[in-house]
């Protein structure tokens, strides 16, 4: 690859596309971008205040209710004129202190919110009280434990127990009254996590004091103990991931544009490699994504209340970590859009492909990040690293302190590898013979796989290269299913994982048969199945990286990855060796079954895929049952 030519193509890509925009469109786009850029941090800092002033409360200034009403933006204090009630107000505080609500749905809603507001106001007053013992004569410690875990019953009796699923019960024992925690991994009155917890699962940020964008620190009542709304993740997904969706539309379009009417043929015949062309065309969009992410990261880092007192170096460091975490997402967005642009036959089809990819990738980045601070499943998403970097809850204790390399590798490596494989897959068909043909997306996909086959051993290579996708798909399945009851999620997970893996091991073999690469005999199928199973087995061992963050501590994590690694299982060395190498036999057998189906035709292939999936799921169930 020649850097000078890559840069020249990148410059051409920018100037070519710049010519497509008139000045008015550019101006409108800039205004929209600036508006989004300006509003995002503000919204992040202040929250959305759509309900400001929706309730009118007639309350005298000397009433003790006046201050709570005045301090809550939902309420507007008005003159307590009984004649104007209920027409001009929803609530009225009578001279005797009683509060009456209008007999309307809005009046009842106002009363409900009024109660919450007064309670919160009282909490704040108590928190500000110098005599803590007087304000909070009863302390409740909270310990989070895994469901069915022995520690759940052993840890701190008399505490509020919250299971991993967030169920709570109050045992009612009083504390020592000095505000100290007695439970491991519990929270103090300010809601921050205490150190030295034994539990691998962190507690939610009670009352929001640990929240990224500020919030009330006055909580601490049992009613406040609840999984927080994933506002940070929502904002981060909006701020970091949403702009990517716009960029990939333009990127995928420019890739497809090269294929329309064979426009890109002249570039192919010029003295530049296809890698130069692809890199040059991708570079501006990647740079744009990084630039947007950098501005967003600096903006959010600077405006985060937690950043108060942190110097420019700390802010720069946090922003750099955020951008580094977002880069693999950007690359995967671009890589999948590139493949979409190479496979789609028309802009209409491309829109469908990019929207599908966009939804899938956004879900992958966003859904696990919802559970940041709540559950280790959040570690799947690089956005979690961003939240941790901004909160300082990663490896350090404040914004600007880096996340660990292990966390970074776990969250991003599958994305980097997937992006690399996708670019390679698309580059394989970036040639005259493939890029200008009008074939359906599935057939193009098979063409792309076939382009990577050079012999029977390629089956092993392609199976191994599918591991990042398998890993990503399985992590997503875990993330989507983990909130369901285990009795329901476990069988679905086992079948889903088996299906994903069987497809990964067989689809390229099917592509090879479909393109007459291999002889259609059972012997050939057996050899290819052997290679495919071996390649997959070796690649699968890479999923041991999951151990880095203890994901297999989850029951679903064990189901997804414990069957692969055999780690964390207490058994004799012989059994462990069996568990270690049994997958090799499984993968070889099931890959041979699907390869045998692929030698016939598509229907036979799908039929054997179902059989292989059931066999694989049965194996998984057996191993999971053994692990217990």
């Amino acid at each position, binding site marked *: 690859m020649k850097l000078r030519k890559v840069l020249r193509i990148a410059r051409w890509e920018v100037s070519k596309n710049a010519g497509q925009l008139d000045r008015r469109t550019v101006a409108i786009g800039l205004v929209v971008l600036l508006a989004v850029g300006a509003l995002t941090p503000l919204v992040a800092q202040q929250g959305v205040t759509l309900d400001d002033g929706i309730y009118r409360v007639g309350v005298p200034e000397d009433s003790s209710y006046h201050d709570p009403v005045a301090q809550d933006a939902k309420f507007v204090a008005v003159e307590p004129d009984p004649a104007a009630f209920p027409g001009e107000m929803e609530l009225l505080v009578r001279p005797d202190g009683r509060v009456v609500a209008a007999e309307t749905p809005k009046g009842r809603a106002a009363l409900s919110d009024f109660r919450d507001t007064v309670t919160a106001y009282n909490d704040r007053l108590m928190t500000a009280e110098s005599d803590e013992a007087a304000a909070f004569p009863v302390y409740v410690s909270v310990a989070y434990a895994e469901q069915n875990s022995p520690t759940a019953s052993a840890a701190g009796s008399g505490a509020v127990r919250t299971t991993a699923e967030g169920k709570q019960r109050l045992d009612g024992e009083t504390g020592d009254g000095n505000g100290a925690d007695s439970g491991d991994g519990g929270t103090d009155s300010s809601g921050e996590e205490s150190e030295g917890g034994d539990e691998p699962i962190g507690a939610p940020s009670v009352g929001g004091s640990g929240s990224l964008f500020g919030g009330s620190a006055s909580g601490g009542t049992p009613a406040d103990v609840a999984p927080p709304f994933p506002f940070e993740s929502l904002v981060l997904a909006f701020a970091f991931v949403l702009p990517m969706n716009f960029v990939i539309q333009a990127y995928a379009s420019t890739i497809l544009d090269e294929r*329309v009417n064979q426009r890109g*043929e002249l570039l192919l*015949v*010029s*003295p530049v490699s296809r890698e130069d062309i692809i890199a040059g065309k991708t570079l501006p969009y990647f740079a744009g994504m990084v630039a947007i992410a950098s501005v967003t990261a600096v903006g959010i880092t600077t405006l985060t209340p937690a950043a108060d007192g942190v110097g420019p170096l700390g802010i720069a460091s946090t922003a750099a970590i955020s951008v580094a975490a977002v880069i693999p997402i950007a690359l995967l967005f671009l890589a999948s859009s590139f493949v979409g642009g190479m496979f789609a036959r028309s802009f209409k089809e491309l829109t469908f492909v990019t929207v599908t990819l966009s939804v899938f990738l956004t879900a992958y980045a966003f859904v696990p990040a919802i559970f940041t601070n709540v559950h280790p499943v959040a570690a799947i998403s690089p956005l979690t690293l961003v939240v941790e970097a901004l909160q300082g809850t990663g490896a350090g204790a404040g914004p600007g302190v880096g996340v660990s390399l292990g966390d970074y590798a776990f969250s991003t490596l599958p994305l980097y590898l997937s992006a690399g494989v996708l670019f390679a897959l698309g580059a394989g068909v970036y040639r005259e*013979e493939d890029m200008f043909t009008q074939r359906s997306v599935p057939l193009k996909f098979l063409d792309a796989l076939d382009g990577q086959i050079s012999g029977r051993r390629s089956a092993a290579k392609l199976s191994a290269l599918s591991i990042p996708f398998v890993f990503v798909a399985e992590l997503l399945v875990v993330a989507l299913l983990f909130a369901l009851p285990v009795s329901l999620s476990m069988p679905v997970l086992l079948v889903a994982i088996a299906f994903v893996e069987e497809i990964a091991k067989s689809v390229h073999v099917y592509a090879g048969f479909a393109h007459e690469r291999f002889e259609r005999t059972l012997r050939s199928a057996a050899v290819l199945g052997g290679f495919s199973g071996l390649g997959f087995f070796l690649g699968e061992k890479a999923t041991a990286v999951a151990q880095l963050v203890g994901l297999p501590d989850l029951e679903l994590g064990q189901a997804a990855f414990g069957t692969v690694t055999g780690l964390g299982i207490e058994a004799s060395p012989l059994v462990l060796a069996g568990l270690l190498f049994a997958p090799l036999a499984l993968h070889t057998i099931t890959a041979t079954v699907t390869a045998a189906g692929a030698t016939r035709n598509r229907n036979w292939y799908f039929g054997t895929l179902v059989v292989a999936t059931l066999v694989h799921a049965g194996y998984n169930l057996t191993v999971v049952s053994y692990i217990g």
Partner: protein
Amino acid sequence: MIEVDDLRKEYDGFTAVEGSNFSVPDGEVFGVVGPNGAGKTTTLKMLAGLVEPTAGSASVAGYDAGDPEMRKHLGFLPEESPLYEDMTAVSYLEFFADLYDVPRNVARERIHDTLDRLDLDHRERRIGDMSKGMTRKVAIARSLVNDPDVLIYDEPASGLDPLTTNYIIEFTRDLAVSGKTVVFSAHNLFHVESICDRVAVMNDGRIVARGSVDAIREEHGRTEYHVYTSVEVAGARKENGRYRRTVESMDAVEETRELAARAGGEVEDIQTHTPSLEDIFLEIAQESPDVEGRP
């Protein structure tokens, strides 16, 4: 300059080109003709390194057809050349000059010189706003931006009006005169006949005839004599009040004279008809089954 040795190309079991052999020396204009689907474009794309042969080999300017170094010596003009509509002609050509490592000042001079020769004005106009003929001229200018030794032009005048077509054919002839080696395909055989030193006639993926136009005419063409008589003779057709008998030898002409005399008439006129390349092509094509696009 160009050597083609037993080229073959298959697509999913379909053979597009089979057993293609020819060579083109320096400075020659070589034509490739044939009906649609004969394998002309596939052959040219294999020469340009765009399509990988299934078997056989081709070399251009001393390099293998797939060698990136070869591309520096090649100017390729595909049959359809949709350009980047939002660029101007000059910026488009400057971009390709950069890719070919042509120094800026040299490129600028060469681009304007070529556009002058092609009589292309409005050089700063968006390509999307240009006519088809102007766009084709830009595409031709692009093929010359690296001052290549070899030019491969696939249907350079396809879809253009007669005036522009003639202009481009003349321009191609001038390129050959200036020493470029040109491989040229066209549907209009008159153009091929008028500028090509040698031709290869392709049909069904195979070269069915090759050589100079005269040699092919000699090999495949038959000189015909149209003998016009005042009376009807065997094998004659009435035409404008007299009878025409078409024969292929002077003996047959003499026989026609005797037949007319025996019927009380005489031979009024004898015309010699030399077949054009198009006639020969049609005849060759008709000899092969399953020819698409036969007129």
